[in-house]
């Protein structure tokens, strides 16, 4: 028995080193090529492959939905995943390793913004093709990107600054309603506000301004919370911000001019995939810039010891208020996108349930970490979509997962790390050649 276990362990270890040897030496751009290739395979051959594997259509979300509804299709789905995603990625990263390393080395010598643009372009290409195959995928991707923005902006307040804010859905609502009002009033013929005041064709160009307007509305809301609650530290912010959430919700429920409990609908479809992607990238870039600067590090100093921060010339009160408004701004922008993605908002979307989801993504992914927020938002969002067929059991599995993470990694999966794009994109010397 012991012996068997031992050999099993050895084999396991062997597999691990094999996997490690396989994966090392592959720069990020090589992975992106692999993913791009896999998506191309699915785009052109997906229908054919799924037909021969006996699947009714291409598995939309990695086959979770199909498998959970019809367990008999498990072998076919696994085969599909292997042929469409697994094989092309393996083949491409193996064969492109050397040229990709050379390309990465070349990009490493260029300004970091150029390298980032190349990587993002490649990633967006893959994402666009992948989303092109089904409307459901498109919606899931857009909502996931919005979730990333929300989680990241909450991380700035709850993680980096160490306060506990509960009003993120409230900020989101302010942003969503402000942006919707702007676009509906100015650029759409709808039953709420009547005819468009400006030429409809101008709408898409003014959409960024509408989003910024939503963000500013949210940060003004944040200022209202910040002034009374940042005089002292402690639980005040949690309580006041929770109250703010309810105030905002009941305010818009009772404001007939924005539709009351029925909400607002028929927003123009400005929030296309590239728009959402660009706004999300901007959000990640700006927040990452901020938290890596000495001004942003002041948030950590305020969190870890406010008195020491104050004695070291940091204006703690100003820092806290500005950060809170900054976090709220991005929540407002995310809310504006949310309204234009669904093209419908009602007060019910911005309640305590939404707060719980954002908090779950934040604490699952990890505090004080940009990477953690991205991982948390993507995994919880995709998981909750993928487990949708389980209906009520979904709400047992996801909380259980959260509890497990809290037990084994109390600060979240990837906490207290710095997100360094340059490090991420650098070439990796081929060390796994003979392993």
């Amino acid at each position, binding site marked *: 028995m012991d012996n068997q276990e031992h050999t099993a362990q050895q084999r396991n270890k062997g597999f691990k080193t094999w996997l490690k040897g396989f994966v090392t030496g592959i720069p990020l751009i090589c992975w992106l090529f692999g993913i791009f290739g896999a998506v191309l395979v699915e785009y052109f051959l997906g229908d054919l492959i799924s037909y021969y594997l006996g699947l009714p259509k291409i598995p939309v979300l990695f086959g979770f939905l199909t498998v959970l509804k019809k367990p008999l299709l498990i072998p076919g789905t696994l085969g599909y995943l292997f042929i469409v995603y697994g094989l092309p990625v393996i083949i491409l990263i193996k064969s492109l390793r050397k040229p990709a390393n050379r390309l990465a080395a070349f990009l490493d010598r260029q300004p970091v913004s150029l390298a980032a643009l190349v990587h993002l372009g490649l990633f967006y290409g893959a994402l666009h093709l992948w989303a092109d195959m089904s409307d459901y995928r498109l919606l899931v991707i857009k909502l996931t990107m919005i979730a990333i923005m929300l989680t990241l902006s909450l991380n700035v307040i709850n993680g980096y600054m160490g306060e506990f804010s509960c009003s993120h859905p409230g900020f989101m609502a302010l942003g969503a309603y402000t942006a919707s009002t702007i676009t509906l009033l100015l650029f759409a013929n709808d039953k709420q506000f009547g005819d468009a005041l400006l030429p409809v064709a101008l709408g898409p160009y003014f959409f960024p301004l509408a989003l910024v307007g939503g963000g500013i509305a949210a940060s003004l809301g944040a200022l209202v919370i910040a002034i009374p609650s940042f005089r002292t530290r402690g639980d005040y912010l949690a309580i006041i911000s929770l109250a703010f959430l309810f105030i905002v919700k009941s305010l818009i429920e009772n404001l007939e001019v924005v539709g009351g409990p029925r909400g607002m609908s028929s927003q123009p479809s400005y929030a296309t995939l590239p728009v959402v992607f660009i706004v999300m990238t901007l959000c990640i870039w*700006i927040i990452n*810039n*901020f938290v890596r*600067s*000495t*001004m*942003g*590090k*002041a948030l*950590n*100093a305020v*969190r*870890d*010891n406010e*008195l*020491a*921060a*104050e*004695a*070291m*010339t*940091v*204006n*703690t*009160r100003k820092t806290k208020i*500005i950060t809170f408004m900054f976090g709220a701004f991005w929540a407002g922008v995310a809310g504006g996108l949310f309204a234009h993605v669904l093209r419908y908002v009602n007060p019910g979307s911005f309640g305590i349930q939404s707060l719980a989801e954002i908090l779950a993504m934040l604490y699952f992914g990890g505090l*004080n970490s940009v990477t953690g927020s991205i991982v948390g938002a993507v995994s919880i969002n995709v998981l909750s979509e993928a487990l949708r067929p389980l209906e009520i059991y979904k709400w047992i599995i996801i909380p259980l997962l959260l509890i497990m993470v809290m037990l084994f990694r109390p600060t979240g999966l990837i906490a*207290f790390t710095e997100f360094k794009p340059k490090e991420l994109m650098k070439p990796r010397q081929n060390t796994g050649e003979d392993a």
Partner: protein
Amino acid sequence: MRNMALLRVDNMTHYFGGLRAVHKYNLVLEPGHIVGLIGPNGAGKTTIFNLISGIHTPTEGNIELDGQNLIGHHPHEIAAMGLGRTFQNLLLWRHMTVLEHVKMACYSKITYGLIGAFFGTPKRKREEEKIESKAHDLLKVVGVDHIADQIVINLPYGDQRRVEMARALAIEPKILFLDEPTAGMNPEELNQMMEIIRHVHRELGLAIFLIEHRLKMVMELCEIIQTLDFGRIIAEGTPEEIQNDPKVIDAYLGKEVVL
């Protein structure tokens, strides 16, 4: 003559509720001098530090730094005017590296503003590089530059004290307040810390205001020593005068009672 003093405290009194923590305290600290503050536990030494650095506002009295009135200013403003300090119980930021600690104390020197912080402008890059090299220099002064990238909470106690010292120096102070800089140190670390204090005093010409329990150290370093008991100064003078002052001996050892 009045303008000679770098730091001047006049008749400062402070009450915590009904408790009189500090009573009619006076201090004149001239450029380049080292003044020591000694006294039994609970005498109000740290309270005096907190009052001058703005953490508490004195009930009565006047504080002037370089001719500027400090009453009513926030601690961060007072710090930026040139008052660096360390804390008795080491107030470090547990998730930050040694280098980040020292860079953080350059906060008031940053001029790139929010725009620079958000968009990573070239100006920000220049300024960050400047304060980084300055931080490395200061870490070399206190001898912890080799561990600049470590998280501060993992360091031994003596090194943490040095980081705090470097951090206080990074705000480019005119006066350095040291609150028991050698508490919990072994004799070797103690000697190194005294060397550092002498070094910054000599090289940077700082005025130093020192709270310390180790009388040997205070006697060696300070030019003037104040003795505090129950919030009031009971003796002030050169080390020799203090050593032989019967009131000081009483405060520290208790009265000799002859039966």
